[in-house]
């Protein structure tokens, strides 16, 4: 089993707000992330796949196919977007780093051929990242 990680970057804006809570509760829970006008980050995405090395190609995965899937399924949808308003998952969910990692997993997992998705890591800043392994 060999693990391969491909990195990508996207920039997007978001804010944290749950309409089920009062304005005061939202402000207390989410602090400055609650500003309704949004704020932005340069996100770094790391996608790790795993599999046996194909004896013919020497590859775990066709990197071009992986890049194409990441571009089409994730970057085209998230890069330079206001996540709360433009990305379907976040019309009903708060676009926290946790939920972004889970959403990216769900977008990639059914589209990958040959290799198996192992981990999605999303850095919101260099000091904060979330790992999702597809666990229930």
């Amino acid at each position, binding site marked *: 089993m060999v693990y391969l990680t491909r990195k990508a970057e996207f920039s997007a804006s978001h804010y944290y707000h749950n309409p*089920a809570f009062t304005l005061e509760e939202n402000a207390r829970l989410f602090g400055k992330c609650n500003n309704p006008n949004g704020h932005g980050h340069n996100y770094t995405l790391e996608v790790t796949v795993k599999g046996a090395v194909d004896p013919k190609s020497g590859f775990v995965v066709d990197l071009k196919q992986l890049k194409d899937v990441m571009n089409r399924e994730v970057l085209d949808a998230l890069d330079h977007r206001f996540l709360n308003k433009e990305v379907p998952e976040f019309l009903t*969910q*708060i676009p*926290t780093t946790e939920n972004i990692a889970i959403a990216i997993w769900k977008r990639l997992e059914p589209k990958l051929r040959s290799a198996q998705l192992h981990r999605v890591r999303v850095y919101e800043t*260099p000091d*904060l990242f*979330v*790992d999702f*392994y597809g666990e229930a």
Partner: protein
Amino acid sequence: MKAHLTRRYMFSASHRLHSDEMSPAENWATYGKCNNPYGHGHNYSIEITVSGQVDPQTGMVCNLIDLDGFVQEQLLQRFDHQNLNLLQEFAGAVPTTENLCISIYQIVKRGFHKAHLEKVRIEETTLNSFEYAGEEGH
């Protein structure tokens, strides 16, 4: 859905690696220039990884306001710009980064209960890093 969240913090501190159980020659042989009696310092990078179910109400494993507050009060205010050898944690232990990693793990495990602590990772320099995930299941 279960996710892992990692937050990085920085602090700067000095230390000296020296064991009273060894002779000066043994200390020098074991610790080399880290045995300099005047001590020396590092910028430590601490990564704390917690895990748990993502709360559907908040979208979070744990609120960073809580984690940052705990780390600020219990770790950074005590460790930043200090001499590690003088802290109570190292009264009977050499402040290697291994021992620092275990101490920080124990402080977080004991005091922070809003998410499950997975591991503590420390970079002493960009070339050395250490991880401790407790003894359960290891």
